[in-house]
């Protein structure tokens, strides 16, 4: 099977900031991403869980973005501008993808 080098960027960010992040990504030319739910977690600002929550003040989502290596910097700049002041983590992994024309 033909695979191609790409980057897998996974950004865990506050749910209230998610649409701002994806807007920034889209402006930076990112063509595709997916959003996964996060149930809870722990970090420097304490522990949280979505169980039983009604409000949107607490809680995070994970945005996953597969991207060509050469587009990574643009993506990270865009992401950083949004996460900068906010809690959350960003990881970048080397990966291979099928159907490279999609990225």
């Amino acid at each position, binding site marked *: 099977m033909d695979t191609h080098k790409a980057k897998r960027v996974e950004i865990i960010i*506050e749910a*209230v*900031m998610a649409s*701002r992040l994806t807007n920034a990504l889209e402006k930076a030319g990112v063509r595709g991403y997916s959003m996964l739910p996060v149930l809870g977690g722990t970090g420097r*600002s*304490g*522990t949280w*869980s*979505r*169980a*039983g*929550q*009604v*409000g*949107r*003040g*607490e809680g995070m989502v994970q945005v996953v973005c597969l991207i060509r290596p050469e587009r990574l910097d643009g993506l990270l700049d865009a992401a950083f501008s949004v996460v900068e*002041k*906010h*809690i959350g983590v960003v990881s970048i992994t080397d990966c291979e993808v099928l159907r490279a024309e999609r990225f």
Partner: protein
Amino acid sequence: MLDLALANLLSPIVLSFALGLFAALVRSDLTVPEAAAKALSIYLLFAIGFKGGVSVSDHGIDGLLALSLLTGVILSALLPLIAFALIRVMSGLSTLDAAAVAGHYGSISIVTFVAATSVLQGAGITSEGFMVAVAAAMEAPAILSALWLVSRGEKSGRMDADLWREILFNGSIVLLLGSFAIGWITGDEGLDKISAFIVAPFQGVLCLFLLDMGLIAGRGLRSGAGLSAGLFGFGVLMPVIGSMIGLGAGVLIGLSTGGVLLLMVLSASASYIAVPAAMRVALPEANPSIYLTLSLGVTFPFNLTLGIPLYLWAAQLVTGG
């Protein structure tokens, strides 16, 4: 007054909250799924809004509605200033954290409002149907006050168009005002069609919602960084002060005894839905565990158990109702 407080403490609603609190404190694995909790909250907002609208369609409107809305907006905008000063006196919180907390106390807790309407209903006291619109009107102004408190010293503002939209078209505001409008438009005929859904089972649904609130509040109290005595005191004192201001305002504009109580409760209660989300966007550096624990772990239970009967007693005393 004591009778009233006891009756309130021993109502299924308050006991359900206590059960949730207990379960969280003993670390039971009891949880209400997030989707179910949100569904309950949609139900409550829809039902309370609709019934308010129907009541307005029954009694017609007059200047009092506009006056009450205006009063609500002013209270919501001013209460944060008082709260801010009080926090700064009672605790060592930074400007940022104090402003974030203050914003919560200007805004409102709709479930506290709902609990108060249940108490009124139990006591056979009527109230103005439009108070639910006043509740919606009081959600947002406090957020602006909080941001103003912070940005006084800053160059760049903290509001942008997106945030404006998010605050004004917040889901609970839209649903409350929308169902209020639907109730108003469809009136008693509309209510007839759906009262088996929004009236009859209402108290029972509220029990489950309060069970969930107890679970969340208990979890917050357990894991939250312990509050200082000063902050804890603020969480109990501020609602009392807020309610007194609400009392004055309500009497001044001529609300009925029930309406006065509801305005007191709105003034006394602290937001735990709209404001925390707005604060995370606009004041991300403020520590959420402080305002969430205060609002949900201290002020909400206080209002639910002791506050509402106390306010009702005061409202009846002052209005003679």
